[in-house]
């Protein structure tokens, strides 16, 4: 039995680093909120409020306190899930985010599934047949993925598959006849329509999500296939692979049972990272496809100077990003004995 102490120490260290990183995140959003050229009091009371109203709100927001005290108030609010109220619709920002987030989650999840299903086999084949035409094609696919502006590719996709060919649904999550037809349980329309057993809605929702999800999938495919390829190359040049081949093991078994088995942990890390990147990449994609997710929410709020909503959205996306990063780190430590 290994002693328990290093485990506890490791866990404490991880928790500590999560706490410090999150504190840093909140500090940055706090500073951004303070250097804003927009007066938060004026934004609430309006231009024509009397001086006494202005002062009352000024005190209520705690703006008379020292900055450090204000920062602690801010942290306390965030811990309780309070991001203030949106200036646009006077609703709590946290409620708004909870409403729009499932749409982003649905899109990013489908995207990363596309990336995994296509990216890993492509990467493996490119490594096994290094230098062949498949490897060249995989390289071009990745290179184009790294170089293409995602919003432009989205527009082109809409133009070709919706405008010209008419294969997929247009912008939005469902067609206008299907809006609010199924009750919202998870907020993810594909799952909600399945729960409701409404196939028409499911089919319509699928025709709308398939294009933006494939688009995001393409970007994670570019990354996942490249990483898979370089991990596989490293394994295939190892001596145990040569030994297995010399023993007469079939090429299929060498690749999948030996080499691939050894890169699974690294791949999970890569997938977690590309999932985090997709949540972010969905900002621009959502705008192109009028997808009512957190990316659209932040940008709409930005353009109308609704600062509580912008910062609340930034904090939520940042937290998820940090958690996914740490999660992939942890997986690595748990599954790879060498990293312990």
């Amino acid at each position: 039995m290994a002693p328990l102490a290093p485990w506890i120490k490791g866990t404490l260290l991880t928790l500590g680093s999560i706490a410090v990183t999150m504190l840093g995140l909140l500090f940055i959003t706090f500073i951004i909120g303070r250097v804003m050229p927009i007066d938060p009091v004026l934004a609430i009371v309006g231009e024509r409020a009397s001086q006494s109203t202005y002062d009352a709100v000024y005190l209520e927001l705690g703006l008379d306190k020292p900055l450090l005290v204000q920062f602690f108030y801010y942290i306390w609010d965030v811990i309780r899930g309070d991001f203030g109220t949106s200036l646009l619709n006077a609703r709590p920002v946290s409620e708004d985010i909870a409403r729009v987030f499932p749409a982003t989650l649905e899109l990013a999840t489908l995207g990363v599934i596309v990336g995994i299903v296509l990216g890993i086999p492509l990467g493996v084949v490119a490594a096994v047949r290094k230098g062949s035409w498949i490897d060249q094609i995989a390289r071009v696919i990745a290179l184009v993925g790294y170089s293409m502006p995602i919003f432009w590719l989205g527009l082109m996709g809409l133009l070709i598959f919706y405008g010209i060919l008419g294969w997929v649904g247009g912008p939005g999550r469902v067609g206008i006849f299907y809006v609010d037809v199924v009750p919202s349980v998870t907020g993810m329309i594909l799952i909600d329509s399945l729960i409701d057993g409404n196939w028409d809605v499911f089919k319509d929702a699928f025709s709308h999500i398939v294009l933006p999800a494939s688009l995001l999938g393409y970007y994670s495919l570019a990354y996942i296939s490249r990483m898979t390829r370089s991990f596989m190359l490293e394994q295939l040049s190892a001596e145990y692979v040569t030994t297995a081949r010399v023993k007469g093991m079939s090429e299929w078994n060498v690749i999948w049972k030996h080499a691939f088995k050894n890169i699974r942990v690294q791949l999970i890390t890569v997938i977690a990272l590309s999932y985090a990147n997709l949540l972010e990449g969905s900002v621009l994609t959502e705008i192109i496809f009028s997808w009512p997710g957190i990316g659209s929410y932040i940008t709409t709020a930005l353009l109308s100077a609704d600062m509580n909503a912008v910062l609340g959205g930034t904090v939520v996306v940042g937290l998820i990003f940090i958690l996914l990063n740490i999660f992939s780190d942890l997986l690595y430590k748990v599954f790879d004995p060498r990293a312990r």
Partner: protein
Amino acid sequence: MSDTTSWRGWLLSDTPTSRRHAKLSALYQGWLSFRSNTMAMFGLGILVTLILIALAAPLLAPHDPFVQNLGNRLAPLGTEGHVLGTDSLGRDILSRLIYGSRITLYIVALVALIAPIAGLLVGTVSGYAGGWIDVVLMRITDIFLAFPRLVLALAFVAALGAGIENAVLAISLTAWPPYARIARAETLTIRSSDYIAAIRLQGAGALRIITRHIWPLCISSLIVRVTLDMAGIILAAAGLGFLGLGAQPPSPEWGAMISEGRRFILDHWWVATMPGLAIFTVSLAFNLLGDGLRDVLDPKSSEK
């Protein structure tokens, strides 16, 4: 011809006669191996062309990029006098693309100066000083690294206000941490080498060691990283422009042009397509060049 061969001979000689000779000969050999990489040369070619286009924009552009002609709006490709058509205000798209190359280069050049220099400062100080300075600086770097970059840039631009300079600042603020990491790693290996100990014994101070002996050795790996990051910088800048947070209209910034053309995408596809192709070409060129440079300058990390 004999002149060039003797130059070649001098550059390729095995016994350099001076430090400058050795340096030049190393550079020349790097260039030779870079030149054999077709794709990288292709990327370099595109970028040189882009720089020439940006320099000669007033000579090359067939029209003024800002002059509107509402009588001739949304003209298709190949229209007389407007090879790439016109946009929703009748402005010549080709001329706007040509002038837009200046904005793209301006943004890339600024970010490529600010972010690596900031990273170099943080990284070398952190690596050389060690102790709690190192812990604090690296913690801050990690915090920035843990951020989603585009969202952070969005929040910064929201706070600073829209505009090219603020977009540059926001992108730089999100781009410096990887450079700091690289510079720190290099510093840690250089710091413990014998020649640094020798200089220290001669009485050189920390400032002199960092600026004269550590910085020069960090630069080549930073350059590779910058070139590889350029494509990302261009895409980020175009994304901010597309969202209306970067260059403001009527400026012919490529991302903003796509945003303008978006409204007509189904009927007048070329308005949004052409600037997108321009962005794609340039960032592809940077990616190709970066791959090639990495092979030459940093053979350890190149893909087999």
